């Protein structure tokens, strides 16, 4: 059963990986330049290699694919819309590489966390927008501050890691 489930899940991940890779390449090529083309080729080569070398599926190697995507030359010329689209696709790319996508049957479990995430994001962005009104602080810098606030929130949550749960069950003899 585990092998079958693994095979099914691997198919979804493979599809997601291929789609996100293509999306990243397309975004790169819409800002066509020699550097972006090279970046797109390197990314494509990494993804193709991961199909032939299973070791690249391990997180410590797969993370390099994410880093390669983040080092795309379009970083130097992307506007806000392009940056948001690219990063959203990168998040899906990361999921396909390392972190399994949630099962559709359990998506309901993820609703409340998503709402909480949106609330926290709204608070962080509001702070960023407020900062952007100040003289001497650019919009990009204000957005970076919002990102830093979110990061601090994540670190605070990681510090409050829960101990292993202990459950007492009745044992039938």
């Amino acid at each position, binding site marked *: 059963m585990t092998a079958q489930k693994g095979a099914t899940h691997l198919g979804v991940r493979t599809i997601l990986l291929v789609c996100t890779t293509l999306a990243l390449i397309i975004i790169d090529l819409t800002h066509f330049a020699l550097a972006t083309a090279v970046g797109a080729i390197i990314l494509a080569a990494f993804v193709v290699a991961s199909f032939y070398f299973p070791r690249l599926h391990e997180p410590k190697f797969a993370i390099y694919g994410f880093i390669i995507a983040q080092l795309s030359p379009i970083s130097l010329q992307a506007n806000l819309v392009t940056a948001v689209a690219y990063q959203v696709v990168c*998040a899906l790319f990361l999921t396909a590489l390392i972190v399994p996508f949630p099962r559709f049957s359990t998506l309901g479990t993820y609703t409340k966390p998503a709402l909480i995430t949106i609330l926290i994001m709204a608070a962080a962005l509001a702070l960023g927008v407020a900062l952007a009104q100040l003289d001497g602080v650019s919009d990009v810098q204000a957005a970076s501050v919002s990102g830093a606030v979110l990061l601090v929130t994540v670190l605070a949550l990681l510090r409050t890691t829960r101990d292993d749960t202990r459950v007492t069950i009745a044992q039938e003899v």
Partner: protein
Amino acid sequence: MRAQPLTYLLVVLSALFAGFGALLDLWFYAVAGIVLALYLLWRFLAFQSVIASLQLLIRRNIDKTVVRRGGRVNVEVSISSRVPVKGLFSDTIPVGVELVDGTNRAQLSLRADEKVVLRYALVTISRETVSIEHSSFTLNNGLFSHTIQYTAAAREVKQPPYAVSVEGGAGGAGGARGAPGATSTSVQALYRQRRAHAGMELAYIRPFEVGDSLKRIHWKASAKLNKLMTKEFLADLDDAADAGASVSLIIDQGGMMGRGPAGATELDFAVNVADYFVTSAVARGSRVGLVTYDDSGVRTNLAADASLPHVSGVVRALNEMEPATPLRRPRTKMDVTGSDVLHVKQHFAATPEADANDDIRRFRHIISYLYAHSEGYVRNLHGAPAFRAITTTLKRARGRSTLVLVSDLESDFSPLSEGIRLASRRGMRVYVIALFSKVFEESDDPLFEVEDVYAAYEAHRRRVRKLEGTPNVKVIEANAAEALRPSLQEARIA
């Protein structure tokens, strides 16, 4: 819940991207920092939500709870969940047991309300109760992991492994005990075909002594033997059984205990004595534990408990007990204990050199030699099976507890007596059921001399007297039936 190293790496990347964005004024990296941080936040909260919604149902079935050494135990675990979940399930194998078939760990991918069955087999290295009390389920979503520890509660027995029942009112099958509420014919029924109560019905009489209660006179035996005989053994067992809220039985299972006719060996007698205590403990609701040892070490180790499955485990262990093969090993006789030597050495150390002459120096040299050997004795003491059996019991003793030791006092007597002294110093009431049956092994020996029997009995009596000198220790001499047979046959009782 713990974060994986990858998570911390992504946190660092997010910080770097946010920094690059601020420094280089690039939207790309500023947004990268925000999106990555949001992603980590969402996955963290989502994982917590999954853990909170998880409800695993674990049912474990073990086909035996008490086995012989090397015995095989088959375990079947069924796991199901109300929500789909993937994770690593693991049963914690207890100490003294080895996995021989199947696996106790498995990566499971559970569908909602669908059962997964895990089967594995264990082999016991030491003979004791086998119970799987701990298991764990680890979830991992790539960024975070969480382990849920499952512990079995106090046993909820729906169907006891043996049809052990405790009935009140009927007289125990162990003889004319007659105590109210005595039990338990079903417990007796678990015994194999040892010769029924070998020795028990005969070994409780002895010649009348001044001071014995008239109520304890065995009139039939007295008439036959033409002298007053007192029922002592069972009465003393009564006292021992009533002594505490917890009875720890220690039985010598060494090769020497196999002497005697089949079904009426010393070990059979010891088992029947133990049966008496188990029955009494069940009637009183006391805890009863069992430790057995032979020449090579502790064989059975069951802590004192009063629950029904535990008692049935004790009965089964008694039922399956066999005398071990006698080991022949060199024994060092030491009549001087380590503490004696230390006292003498300290005395010499306090003696000024000017007062020492050649005799004293030579004696000091001898004592030093004994001191060196006594250290070896102390080391050997701690490794001696009898001593270890007693210390094992002492470690777990709590409350008013009684130690009942059944042995022929022939193997490892020094460690045994040291252990008994230790137990009495710890406040335990110690009852030693001392067996003597030297007559068996030599009845077919062409060189058999009656004088050898008397000499052996004298040695036995010396050991008994030594034990009787220890406070809180009572020695109950229980001659096995065969030792009394000649005189009882003459009196036409046996």
